[in-house]
């Protein structure tokens, strides 16, 4: 598993970088960073589930739920206030997970993965067909968010820092969850469901609660995405979107918080650069990267970082010994 002690140092350094550096970066990089923030939050949901051995190919269900919650508020109420919409997106994700989770908590492995896919594709179909409500394939225009009445465009510093603050909150919540009994049971459940039941806890409850957390995170990510991109489409619920979340989780390494963050940043930059310079081959590049990760470092980029760090600090300690 992960080396948790390595975390504060790397975490503080990463947070400092993400706070201090952006003002000195060109606008387009800021935009990519903002995209990485909501990507991270969505991937965190997938990653928390993976910690319990639960692979989902349908997490875009929650992402789209959050995004369309915003879409309907904009369309019907003209509300673009983040203070209201972030909790609303979280609640929408939570309620969706509370309903779908009743079924999902009974299943594992392939069935869990594919049932999630099925539910997300049902939403995709509904978003596509109910065009008088959802705008069909055209989607919905979202416009510019406000934060306490102040306008924040999707590519502004203000919006970036707001996204970063959300990432901070999500990070705290996820750490709290992983240190909680449910977080431990989740990891233990992957090892041995029988022992969990014979200890006196319902495995289904562990799965259900984790699913609620993952769904809520998906909803929040959807809200942030809607305002970052400024436009939502049914493809937000499509299986390719779900697959991207899983890809990023594997790329960065699931199990903790740093992996998905690293994965989200690398993915967004890769996607931007690769689609610019190799417009016809960028998916192939992603495939090759995934192949290399799985073959040589299944723990993802974070595991590679940890290995390098261990080697460096190992040398340092060697010199420090009395």
């Amino acid at each position, binding site marked *: *598993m992960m080396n948790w002690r390595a975390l504060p140092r790397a975490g503080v350094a990463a947070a400092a970088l993400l706070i201090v550096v952006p003002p000195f970066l060109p606008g387009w990089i800021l935009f990519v960073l903002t995209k990485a923030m909501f990507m991270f939050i969505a991937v965190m949901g997938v990653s928390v589930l993976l910690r319990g051995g639960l692979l989902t190919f349908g997490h875009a269900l929650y992402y789209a739920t959050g995004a369309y919650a915003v879409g309907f508020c904009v369309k019907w109420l003209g509300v673009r206030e983040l203070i209201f919409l972030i909790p609303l997106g979280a609640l929408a994700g939570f309620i969706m997970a509370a309903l779908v989770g009743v079924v999902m908590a009974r299943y594992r492995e392939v069935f869990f993965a594919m049932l999630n896919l099925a539910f997300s594709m049902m939403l995709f179909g509904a978003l596509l067909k109910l065009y008088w409500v959802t705008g069909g394939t055209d989607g919905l225009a979202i416009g510019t968010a406000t934060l306490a009445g102040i306008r924040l465009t999707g590519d502004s510093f203000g919006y970036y820092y707001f996204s970063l603050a959300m990432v901070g909150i999500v990070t705290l919540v996820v750490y*709290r*969850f992983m*240190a*909680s*009994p*449910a*977080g*431990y*049971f989740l*990891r*233990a459940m*992957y*090892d*041995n469901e*029988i*022992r*969990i*039941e*014979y*200890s*006196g*806890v*319902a495995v289904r*409850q*562990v799965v259900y*609660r984790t699913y609620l*957390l993952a769904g809520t995170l998906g909803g929040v990510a959807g809200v942030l995405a809607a305002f970052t991109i400024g436009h939502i489409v049914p493809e937000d619920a499509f299986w390719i979107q779900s697959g991207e979340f899983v890809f990023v989780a594997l790329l960065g390494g699931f199990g903790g918080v740093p992996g998905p963050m690293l994965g989200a940043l690398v993915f967004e930059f890769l996607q931007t650069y690769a689609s610019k310079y190799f417009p016809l081959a960028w998916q192939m590049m992603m495939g090759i990267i995934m192949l290399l990760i799985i073959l040589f470092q299944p723990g993802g980029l974070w595991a590679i970082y940890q290995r390098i760090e261990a080697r460096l600090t190992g040398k340092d300690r060697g010199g420090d010994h009395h």
Partner: protein
Amino acid sequence: MSVVLNVQGLEKSFGAVVAAHNINVSIEAGETVGVIGANGAGKTTFVNMVTGYLEPSDGRIEFMGRDIRGRSVRQITRLGLCRSFQVPQVFLSESVFDNLMISFGIAERDGLGLLGALMRGDRGERVDQHLLRYQIADYRNVAASALPQGVRKLLDIAMATVRKPKLLMLDEPTSGISVEEKFGIMDILMQALKEEETTVLFIEHDMEIVERYVSRVLAFSQGEIICDAPTEQAMVDPLVQEFVIGKEYHRARAGNGSGNGASEGEAGRC
């Protein structure tokens, strides 16, 4: 003495195979009961039914005066009827300490807190005390997957006892353990269970273990209890000798027994 477990007319069949037929057992507080029987005699099926893992076809199971038939494994566990496994069921990728920490977390909260941390207050100290009681403290930070079999067995049992169960069922505590280790491990185990005043029922194939640690024997054969008696009496019961112990063992015992006063007496009665 109060009756902890009372089973009446328990039945279970898997298709044409009768795994349990007319099982009647009553266990009182403080007893140490051994369950013996050949492979497939229905011993583990009995434990599985009593702990809620298998639904019996018929019969009645009362634990502490309460009807528990049809209740789930976790409900029965929470009432204080816990078990260990023939193949240890531990969290392989976690350390010994974390394994017990998780068990304590479940036992003490009876639920799934999402906000409080699992490790808090003096729970860590209680885990360490438990490790000492089962003499596995040396392995505190070792991953369960890397443990020797005997230690893993003790961990499995230690995890089953964090609730201070009123009745503990052990499925072959010494299976997979070397002959040299088995008495050492049983001594640790019985001492720890005695300290906690736990009523114990354990399945065991090893007659030496049965004779040394058990006061009463339930002998199973083909899904039925063929003998329920104090240990010395059960060991010489003709049915038990025929169906459970087998003649080989007794021939060997009789031969060894001539140089050993205590067992010579028993062997003489065979």
